[in-house]
C-alpha cells in the first residue's frame, strides 16, 4: 500500500504547487501551500506505518509540521490583511516591490 499513499502525497503536493504558482489570489496561494504541506504530512504518516522501521516518529513529525503550519497560516493571514490595507487588493500581481 505504501506506493499508493506516496502517490497520493505526490498528487496533493503537485496540485498545491500548481495552485501556489499559478493562482493570482493570495488567499488561494496560501491554501495551496497548506495543501502541499498536507501532502508532505501524508508521506510522513505513511512511512511511519509502512517504512523500513515502522515507528511513531513519523506521526510525531507530522504533528510538529501541523503546528508550524498553523502558526504559518496565522502569520500569513495577518500579513495578507496588512497588505490588503496598504494596497487595497489581494491580487498577487500587485505585490512586486521586490523588483526595485
Amino acid at each position: 500500500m505504501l506506493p499508493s499513499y506516496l502517490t497520493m502525497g505526490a498528487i496533493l503536493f503537485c496540485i498545491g504547487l500548481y495552485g501556489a504558482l499559478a493562482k493570482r489570489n493570495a488567499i488561494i496561494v496560501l491554501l495551496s501551500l497548506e495543501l502541499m504541506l498536507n501532502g508532505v504530512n501524508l508521506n510522513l504518516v505513511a512511512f511511519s506505518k509502512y517504512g523500513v522501521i515502522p515507528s511513531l516518529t513519523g506521526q510525531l513529525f507530522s504533528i510538529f509540521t501541523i503546528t508550524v503550519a498553523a502558526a504559518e497560516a496565522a502569520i500569513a493571514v495577518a500579513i495578507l490583511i496588512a497588505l490588503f490595507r496598504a494596497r487595497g487588493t489581494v491580487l498577487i500581481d500587485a505585490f512586486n516591490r521586490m523588483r526595485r
Partner: protein
Amino acid sequence: MFNVDITGEYIAFFIFAVIIIAGAVLMISLEKVVHMVISMAAAFLGLAGMYVLLDAEFVAFVQVLIYAGAVSILMIFGIMMTKHNGEAVETAKPLHETLAAVGALCLFGLLFYSIRTADFQSAGAFDPGQDNTLAIGEQLFTGYIVPFELLSILLTVAFIGAIALAKKEAD
C-alpha cells in the same frame, strides 16, 4: 501495479483518495473564494480519514481540529476581512500558467516514476501502541521534549506577531 487484493483498507483508501483529489482540484478550479475554502476543508477531512487508515488516530484528530477547523476558519476570516469581488478581471498570463502546469506535471512525473521504481522493504509490523494518544504523549514528553517546548515558543511568538501585524488598523 493494480492487482491489489480488494481489502477493506483498499476500498477505504480509494474513497478517501477520491474525496481528497476532488477537494484539491475543486479548490484550484472553483470561482468563488469561499467555495474554494470549503472544498479544501473536504480535502483535509479526507486526509484525516487516511490518517486513520494509517493507524494514526491522534494525527487524524489533530488534522480535523487544526486544518479542517482552525485553518479553514482562519482563511474564511481572512477572506471576509479583504475584498473579493471574485470577478476581478483576470489578466490572463497563459505562458506563466502553462509553464507552472508543465513544471508541476513534470515534477509529478518524476515523483511517480521514482515511487514506482523504488524498492520499499517492509520490515516488521507497525505497532501503534495500545493507546495511540498515550504513546505519542509519552514520546513527546520524553524524547522530543525540547522540540515540543520550542514549538510552544514558536506558536506564542507567531500569534503575538499575527496580532501585532493585524492590529495596525486601530491606529
